[in-house]
C-alpha cells in the first residue's frame, strides 16, 4: 500500500514536471515506465494528464517573425511575406481554417455544403463574429471580402484561386452562395488561403483594409511595418483560444538575431530557426524545437519545350543524377522528406505510398544520356537563397553529384528581389519552392495542367490532363485514388520537374510556451495561429 502510494506520488511529480514543459514526451515515457507503469498506461497518462492540460489565460506572447519587410501591407490581396501571413492570422479571420490536427474546421463560416455536382456552394456564416471596431459581421462583408480578389480590376494575387467562381450572392442574411463554372470539391479548403481574409465592407462594395481592422483574435494597437506589431485580445472573438493577453510580434529577419533573441529570452518563440545550428539549439535546456512536415515542395522545373530538356531521356538523366538523401542531410539537416518527382506530398490525401522511391544512380543517368544521344550535358540551374535558405548550396551540391554522371550543372545565383519576375517561368531550369496545397487536384491544376498559368515546366501530357479532368468529377474514392496514382507515375517518369524533397517547417519556442498535442502544418507556428492557440505554463 505504501509502495503503491509512493509510486503514485512519483508519477504525479513526473506528470507535473512534464506539464511544466521540463520533460519531453520521450523522457516522460521512460521515467513513467521506470516508475512501474506499462507503456500503454504511460501513453494514456501523457494524453490525459499532460497533453490535454487546460490552457491558462494571461501573459504577453513575444513572437519573432522571419521575412517581414518595411513594405509589408494591409491589403489582403497583396499578402506575400511570412510576416504578413503571421500577422493576418492573428488579427484577421477567414471563412474556414486548417485546424491544429490538420483537418478543415469552421472559422467565420459555421458550416458549408455543396450541390452534388460541387458547382454551387453555400457557406453558413457565424454571425456572432464581430470586427475590432465593434461592427458585427454580415453577409455583405463576406461577399465584399471575396469580391476583392475577383473581377478585371483586381490586383489581388489570389485572383487565380477564385477564377472558377462566376457569382457570389447572399442567401438571406445568414449565408452566402458561390456559383462555379465547374465542379470543385476542394473549394472550402481554398477558403483557408491567407489572402481571403474577411474584412468590413464599404458602402460601395469594396472593403476597408486600410484601417487595419479585422475579426481575428487580436486587435492591433500599434503596427510598424518591418519592425513589429503590438496586439491585444479582441474580447468579442467568435472562436476558441486566444489565451495570451497581448501579443508582440517582432520582425527578426537575420537568422542569428532570431536565434540569439530566443536563447537570451528576448522573445518567447520564433517562426524559423537556422538549420545549420539546429542540433546545437535542440540541446539547449530552455528551448523546444517543432519540426513539422509541411508538404511544401522544392521543385526544379525544366522547360520541356526547350532543348535539351525536350528529350525525356535528358530529364530522366537529370532526375537520376540527384542524391536526395545527401541533399536532405546537408541542406535541411534532416528536416525534410525525399521527393519522388511527383508533386503530391505525404500530407496530402491520395498520396501513393507504393510508388518506388527514385534513388541516386549515376550509371542510370549516364544510360539515359546515351539514349538521348549525348556524351555529356551542360546546363545552367538558377537559384536564390530567399526562396529557401541554402537553395544555392543545394544547387552547388547537385552540380557536384551530377558530375559523376557526366552532367555539368552550372549553379547561377540570381538576385533575390526579381527572382519571381525574371527567373521563374522565364529561365528554362530553375529552383522553386511551393507552399503546401491541400489536395493533389489543387496542386496539379495550378502548375501541371497544360494550360495553367504557372505550368512552370511547359509540360503538356495528354493522358495526364485527361485524368485530371476525370478525377475532378470522380466520386468513387478508390477509383479517384487510382487515377491520382497513375498521374503521379506519369509525372515521375515523363514530367518536367525534378522534386528532390519536401521541406519541414522548423520553428522553436521557449519551454514555458505550450501547444496542443499536434500543430497545423499549413504555415510556420501552428498554421500561423500560434498567438490564438498556444499558451504559457
Amino acid at each position, binding site marked *: 500500500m505504501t509502495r503503491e502510494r509512493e509510486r503514485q506520488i512519483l508519477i504525479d511529480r513526473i506528470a507535473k514536471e512534464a506539464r511544466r514543459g521540463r520533460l519531453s514526451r520521450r523522457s516522460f515515457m521512460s521515467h513513467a515506465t521506470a516508475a512501474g507503469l506499462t507503456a500503454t498506461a504511460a501513453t494514456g497518462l501523457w494524453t490525459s494528464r499532460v497533453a490535454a492540460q487546460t490552457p491558462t489565460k494571461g501573459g504577453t506572447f513575444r513572437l519573432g517573425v522571419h521575412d517581414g519587410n518595411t513594405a509589408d501591407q494591409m491589403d489582403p490581396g497583396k499578402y506575400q511575406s511570412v510576416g504578413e501571413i503571421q500577422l493576418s492570422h492573428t488579427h484577421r479571420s477567414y471563412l474556414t481554417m486548417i485546424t491544429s490536427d490538420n483537418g478543415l474546421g469552421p472559422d467565420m463560416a459555421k458550416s458549408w455544403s455543396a450541390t452534388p455536382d460541387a458547382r454551387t456552394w453555400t457557406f453558413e456564416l457565424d454571425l456572432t463574429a464581430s470586427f475590432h471596431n465593434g461592427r458585427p459581421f454580415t453577409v455583405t462583408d463576406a461577399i465584399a471580402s471575396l469580391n476583392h480578389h475577383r473581377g478585371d480590376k483586381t490586383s489581388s494575387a489570389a485572383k487565380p484561386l477564385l477564377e472558377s467562381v462566376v457569382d457570389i450572392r447572399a442567401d438571406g442574411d445568414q449565408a452566402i452562395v458561390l456559383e462555379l463554372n465547374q465542379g470543385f470539391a476542394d473549394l472550402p479548403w481554398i477558403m483557408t488561403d491567407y489572402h481571403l481574409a474577411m474584412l468590413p465592407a464599404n458602402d460601395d462594395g469594396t472593403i476597408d483594409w486600410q484601417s487595419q481592422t479585422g475579426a481575428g483574435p487580436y486587435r492591433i494597437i500599434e503596427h510598424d511595418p518591418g519592425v513589429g506589431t503590438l496586439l491585444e485580445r479582441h474580447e468579442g472573438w467568435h472562436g476558441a483560444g486566444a489565451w495570451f493577453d497581448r501579443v508582440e510580434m517582432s520582425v527578426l529577419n537575420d537568422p542569428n538575431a532570431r*536565434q540569439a533573441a530566443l536563447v537570451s529570452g528576448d522573445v518567447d518563440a520564433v517562426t524559423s530557426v537556422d538549420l545549420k545550428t539546429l542540433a546545437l539549439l535542440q540541446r539547449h535546456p530552455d528551448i523546444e524545437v517543432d519540426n513539422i512536415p509541411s508538404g511544401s515542395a522544392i521543385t526544379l522545373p525544366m522547360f520541356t519545350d526547350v532543348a535539351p530538356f525536350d528529350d525525356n531521356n535528358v530529364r530522366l538523366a537529370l532526375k537520376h543524377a540527384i542524391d536526395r538523401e545527401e541533399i536532405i542531410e546537408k541542406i535541411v539537416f534532416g528536416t525534410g522528406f525525399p521527393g519522388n518527382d511527383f508533386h503530391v506530398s505525404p500530407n496530402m490525401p491520395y498520396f501513393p505510398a507504393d510508388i518506388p522511391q527514385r534513388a541516386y544512380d549515376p550509371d542510370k543517368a549516364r544510360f539515359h544520356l546515351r539514349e538521348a544521344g549525348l556524351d555529356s550535358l551542360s546546363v545552367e540551374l538558377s537559384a536564390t537563397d530567399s526562396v529557401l535558405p541554402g537553395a544555392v548550396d543545394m544547387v552547388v551540391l547537385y552540380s*557536384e553529384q551530377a558530375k559523376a554522371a557526366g552532367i555539368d550543372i552550372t549553379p547561377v*545565383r540570381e538576385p533575390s528581389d526579381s527572382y519571381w519576375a525574371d527567373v521563374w517561368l522565364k529561365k528554362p531550369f530553375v529552383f522553386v519552392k511551393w507552399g503546401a496545397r491541400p489536395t493533389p487536384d489543387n496542386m496539379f491544376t495550378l502548375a501541371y495542367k497544360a494550360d495553367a498559368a504557372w505550368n512552370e515546366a511547359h509540360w503538356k501530357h495528354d493522358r495526364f490532363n485527361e485524368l485530371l479532368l476525370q478525377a475532378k468529377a470522380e466520386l468513387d474514392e478508390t477509383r479517384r485514388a487510382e487515377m491520382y496514382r497513375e498521374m503521379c507515375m506519369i509525372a515521375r517518369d515523363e514530367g518536367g520537374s525534378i522534386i528532390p524533397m519536401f521541406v519541414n517547417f522548423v520553428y522553436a519556442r521557449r519551454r514555458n510556451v505550450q501547444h496542443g498535442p499536434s500543430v497545423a502544418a499549413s504555415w510556420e507556428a501552428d498554421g500561423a495561429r500560434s498567438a490564438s492557440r498556444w499558451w504559457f505554463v
Partner: protein
Amino acid sequence: MNVFAVTYFAFLIIASSFAAFQQRRGPFMILFSLTLASFVLAIVGGTSALRSVAVGAGLLAFAASIAYCFREFLVIIMPTGIARELRTAPLTAAFGLFVIFTYAIAGIFAPWIAPYGESEIISSAFAPADENMLLGADQLGRDMFSRIVYGARNSVGLALVATVSAFFMGALGGLLAATKGGWFDQFLGRAADVIMSIPSLIFALLMLSIFGPRIIVIIIAVAIIYAPRVFRLTRAVAGNVVVMDYIEAAKLRGERTWYLIRKEILPNSTAPLVAEFGLEFCFVFLLVAGLSFLGLGIQPPTADWGSMVRENATLISFGDLTPLIPAAAIALLTVAVNFVVDWMLFRSSGLKE
C-alpha cells in the same frame, strides 16, 4: 603552484636578469613588467590566464622570428639597392611582407597546394578536423583548408583587381585634373562628389541588381565607388605639387602634360597614394563581403572568404569557431598590408628615428 607556473616565472626572471646584465633597457622593462603583471594575473585568473599569456607571447615571438628570418632572406636574395632599404625595415613590415608573400604563393599555386578541389565534396557537413582535413569541413562537406587556399586566389585577386582599377581611374583623373585645371578639373570634381554622395553599398546593390552579379560587374562597381576617393586624394596631393617651381620650370620648357605627370608629379605624390591603397584594399574586401551578406557576392561554388564567413556565421552564436577561420584570413591580410604601408609611409615622411 604547479610545474607550469614555476617554469613560467623562472623563465621570465632569468630572461629579465639576462637583459639587465646585457644593458638592454627596453627588453628588460618589457620582460620585468610582464613578470610583475603576471603575479597579479596569476592571482586573479590562475594558471589558465598565465597559459594564455604564454601562448600569446609564444605566438608573438614566433611571428617575430619568422619576420626576422624572412627579412634576412630577402636581404640576401635581393639586389643591393633594395637590400639596403630592406635592412632598415622594422620587423612588423617584414612580417607583413612575409604574410603577403605567403598569400601570393597560396593564390598563384592554389591548385597544387590545396589537397582537394574548390568545390569537391568529400565528407559530411561540418566534419571536424582530422589528418585529411586540416581545418575540418564546411556546411556541404568541402575541405575548409582547400577553400581557404582557393579563396586567397579569388577574394584577394578580385579585391586587388578592383582596387588597382579604382586607383588607376582615380589617380589618372586626379593627376589630369591637377595639371589641366579649368572646367575639366571642375567637371571631374563634381562627378566625384556625386558618386561619393551615394552610399556605396546601395550603389553596388543597384549596379549588381541591374547588370547581374558577375565578377566583372563587381569589379567595375567597386572601382567606380572607390575611384572618387582616390581622385580627391590625388587631386589634393598633386595640387600641392603642381604649384611648385620645378613644375613651372618644366612647363616653361614646353614639356607635355603626359611627361609632367609621369616624370614630375607622380614620383612626388606616391607616398600618400600608397598609404591610401592599404586601407582602400581592406575596404574593398569588406564591401565585397558585405555584398555577399546581401546575397550579391561572387557566384558559388567559387570559394570567397566573405561568403565563407557569411555561410557559417550563425555558428558563432553557439561558440563554434568555424566562421572565424576565413574571418581571420581576411584580418591577417589586412594587418599585414597595413604594416607594410606603415613602413612605406614612415620612409617617405623623412622622419629618422
